[in-house]
């Protein structure tokens, strides 16, 4: 599979970009977990698409967090990046924090982003369906929060088990970059609800029914209030959809994009 690592200068921000596979372009916007190195889920998408996998400012080797103060700044960064890649109406697969960014970019520049897959999307605050605390120190508790089966091999492989893990520096960087835009208001934009009717391109929502971080009620709200969205909820699945349901979620995403691009 074709794989290329680039470093871009996006309006003064050094940005890590991985390009994977071949075919029509697809932009992948990653989650707070910082899946910035190709994982199995990306590789599935790359069987049909050229997947652009940028790391958000402050994640992996991307810099420029000092220029980011809120989700709006992050969205403008992606306006710059998408224009730099000369993409337009580009299909997007996005996950959690990445889905929130996708919504915000779409509001700023509707024509940059095309059909969008939103997996376990952040961005909303719903009375009665609070998001759990992501910014805790205990890895075991985090694993239980995020995975349907915290004892599974994926859960163990994906998470550092303690602060001696060599991945910890990148982990801490990702946490800080997430907190920068997601500490308060907590992982949401209070104004986003009022904008949902303006997000009128096709959206495929995918949710783990047992998502404890962002309850499935958020997916149902998005599905109800986005003008052109449908929702698939996956059984025996928590927040970590691309890890827990790699094959299934990738197939849903690819089918949706094939239909919408046809």
């Amino acid at each position, binding site marked *: 599979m074709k794989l290329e690592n680039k470093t871009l200068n996006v309006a003064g921000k050094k940005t890590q970009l991985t390009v994977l596979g071949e075919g029509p372009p697809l932009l992948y916007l990653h989650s707070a977990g910082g899946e910035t190195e190709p994982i199995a889920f990306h590789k599935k998408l790359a069987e049909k698409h050229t997947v652009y996998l940028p790391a958000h400012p402050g994640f992996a080797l991307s810099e420029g*967090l000092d220029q980011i103060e809120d989700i709006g700044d992050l969205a403008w960064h992606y306006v710059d990046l998408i224009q730099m890649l000369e993409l337009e109406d580009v299909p997007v697969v996005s996950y959690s924090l990445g889905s929130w960014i996708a919504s915000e970019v779409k509001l700023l520049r509707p024509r940059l982003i095309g059909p969008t897959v939103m997996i376990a999307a952040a961005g909303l605050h719903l009375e009665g369906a609070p998001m759990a605390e992501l*910014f805790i*120190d205990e890895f075991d508790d985090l694993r239980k929060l995020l995975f349907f089966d915290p004892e599974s091999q994926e859960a163990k492989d994906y998470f550092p088990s303690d*602060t001696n893990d060599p991945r*910890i*520096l990148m982990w*801490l*960087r990702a*946490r*800080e970059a*997430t*907190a*920068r835009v997601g*500490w*308060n208001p*907590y992982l949401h934009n209070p104004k986003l609800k009022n904008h949902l009717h303006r997000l009128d391109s096709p959206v495929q929502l995918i949710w783990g029914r047992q998502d404890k971080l962002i309850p499935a009620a958020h997916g149902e709200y998005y599905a109800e209030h986005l003008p052109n969205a449908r929702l698939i909820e996956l059984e025996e699945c928590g927040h970590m959809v691309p890890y827990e349901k790699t094959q299934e979620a990738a197939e849903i995403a690819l089918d949706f994009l094939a239909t919408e691009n046809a």
Partner: protein
Amino acid sequence: MKFFAFHLMPWDRLPDDFEQNYKTAWTWLPNEIFDPQHGGELYNNYLDQLVLADELGFDGVCVNEHHQNAYGTMPSPNLMASILARQTKNCKIAVVGNAIPFYDPPTRCAEEFAMIDCISGGRLIAGLVVGGGPEYYSFSKNPTFAREMYREAFDLIMRAWTEPGPFEHYGKHWKLKYVNPWPRPIQQPHPPIWIPGAGSRETIQFVAERRFAYMGIPYFHMDFFQRNFDMFRDACEKCDYTADPEQLGWLLPIYTAETDEQAWAEYEPHLWYFVKKLLKGLVVFPPGYTSARSIAGIQKGLQQFMSTCETREDIEAGGYAIVGSPDTVRQKLSERIKKLGVGNLLGLFQLGTLPHDLTCKSMKLFAEKVMPGLREELNATVGG
């Protein structure tokens, strides 16, 4: 050599099953556990203890700020300091400190501190702090901006005290068309500044450059304090001056009774209540509060933190608390103060469940049988 009585105003009635069933004494500890009626009695006892410190001849009393926790139930140290400004006569009143990123705008701190300084006749010591990790959860304040908010608030407060108002402040975090606080402090150009630190080089540099005083954050092993205080002295030398011992403060739990044996017998269960219950959850690092790179160093330091202690021997070996007869306490303190080179000793005499009468007894013994001798001895060596 100066002696201060430091108070956290801790909660003394955590459930028996606390260690098994509660993850922390902070942020998420249900506030149903706080009984207001009993809280009122505690606050009054605690204030009495600090007033007693003044009567006993302590050089100062210290209060501090924490939020939504059982470790220190003093969300507004300025309220307590203003009571003490009236009820004490001679001692310094050190507020260590106000967590200034949480004061909106931070000129509130400049105003309230000035009030306390006026009421007390110029006895305020102004502590200015970033706020603890848990407080960034309690206030939902973005910790990734903690340090820059602190610096902006700090500079603003200093200007508010020293520059004639009104003036404008257009910073990143606060935009103020008119900065013009009434009242102004008696002490000019401003009250003495104390800044606590846990070893971050950045803080040490900041305090050394401005010739303020650096207070060692407590509950660490002696060796950890030694490293930090040495680092501070080096930083002062690099700024072309030699640190005055009064620029350094050391805070630790102290208990004095008639004999060593009696001291341990009276004190030990209360010490463990503090170590095992109240310290639980104190040390958290919300994202960005400390740089990712320095976390590794701090994690190492935490292996020398008091909550790792399991036995009396661990406590004594690490110098985490000084417990014993007046002779023992005096001898240990003398040796360590000389070694650390500190000019301020901040004694924590109440740490939760210790009964009021025992707290007062220990403070009296300390003031009458430890302090005078130490003062005499150390003024000759560590500085007056």
